[in-house]
């Protein structure tokens, strides 16, 4: 793989992370981060939809009339999301129930529109595929960090398995119920941004 292709794949994971740097795709993401499992499924779903919609739009990029491109993009994304939703409903019914409307909201996830507009419309299908995978991984990484922090501190477990030993609870340790509540997801993301920008000083405003 050439250096430029590697950069397309790796850049969005930290330096150009879609969530904490470009401010895209926060909408449907945070509500699913109270536990690790739904967050992981959501991350994989978004990565799949993003990679394939990038490829499809990149293949069609010379035939789509400029004026109606938003509608075409929405139709492509919506069709892919329906496929992902039906697959989840068939093979992972309990996670499908937990994610509920947030699967549908992948359609309006700004990462998808953002990458289609900014990348897939001007690059070859293979590059677009790599870009989709890279951005999806960047998104999944943030989701997982938030979910791990919230599930560990809020319920004392990871992926549903209790990790904090019983003796801690006997010694008076309590789960922080606040971490389960929706607003804490925002505060955790705020802290991730804080750490990320302290390390990478170029990103500071």
């Amino acid at each position, binding site marked *: 793989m050439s250096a430029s292709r590697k950069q397309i794949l790796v850049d969005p994971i930290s330096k150009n992370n879609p969530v904490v740097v470009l401010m895209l795709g926060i909408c449907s993401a945070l509500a699913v981060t109270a536990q690790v499992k739904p967050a992981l499924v959501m991350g994989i779903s978004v990565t799949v939809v993003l990679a394939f919609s990038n490829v499809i739009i990149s293949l069609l990029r010379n035939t789509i009339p400029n004026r109606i491109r938003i509608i075409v993009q*929405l139709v492509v994304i919506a069709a892919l999301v329906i496929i992902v939703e039906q697959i989840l409903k068939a093979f992972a019914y309990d996670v499908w129930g937990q994610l*509920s409307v947030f699967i549908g909201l992948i359609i309006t996830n700004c990462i998808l529109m953002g990458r289609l507009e900014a990348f897939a419309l001007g690059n070859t299908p293979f590059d677009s595929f790599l870009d989709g995978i890279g951005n999806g991984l960047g998104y999944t990484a943030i989701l997982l960090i938030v979910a791990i922090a919230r599930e560990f501190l809020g319920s004392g477990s990871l992926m549903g398995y209790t990790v904090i030993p019983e003796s801690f609870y006997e010694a008076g340790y309590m789960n922080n119920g606040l971490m389960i509540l*929706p607003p804490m997801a925002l*505060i955790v993301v705020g802290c991730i941004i804080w750490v990320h*920008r302290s390390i990478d000083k170029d990103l500071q405003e």
Partner: protein
Amino acid sequence: METVNIFIRSIFVDNMVFAYFLGMCSYLAVSKTVKTSIGLGIAVTFVLVITLPINYLLDTYVLRPGALSWLSPELASMDLSFLSFILFIAIIASIVQIVEMVVEKFTPALYSQLGIFLPLIAVNCAILGGSLFMQQKSFDNIGQATTYGLGSGIGWLLAIVGIAAIREHMSYSKVPKPLRGLGITFIITGLMGIAFMGFMGIKF
């Protein structure tokens, strides 16, 4: 009474921004000044109030399992609900387009204020989220669905105007460098969300 409850709940308890994080992208990007955020908030409310009743009718008479039985009894076993994403987003995109043209034609003053925000709204998660939650909550009649749209829109307006006001004032405060801009906005939104949780259980 039920309708009043839906209205109050959708503004304060099930607030689009604080409870479900919907419409966060435009919420973060457009909340730098109060004036523009009021414009966007009104536009979102407007589109929600129009699209929710239409999507409600679509859901009740076309998409739900058995919804097509009004056409002929043979169709009673049809379940088209897997089509709801694509139909809802199509309705929303076309309504936004129509609203944009109507507003431009009849109220140019409003258009010049809302103009730039209207196309953005088609991909605002709060709008599609409103329709999907409406489908999940299965309201009794179209009035409740419209009320839910109005309440959610007002809740979103309240949130974006609140954060814009705070951000305007924050330009005078000394925020640590790495937190400036995006970071502090997230943390403040989280704190506002915790404050809004005080409304939980509110009922008439």
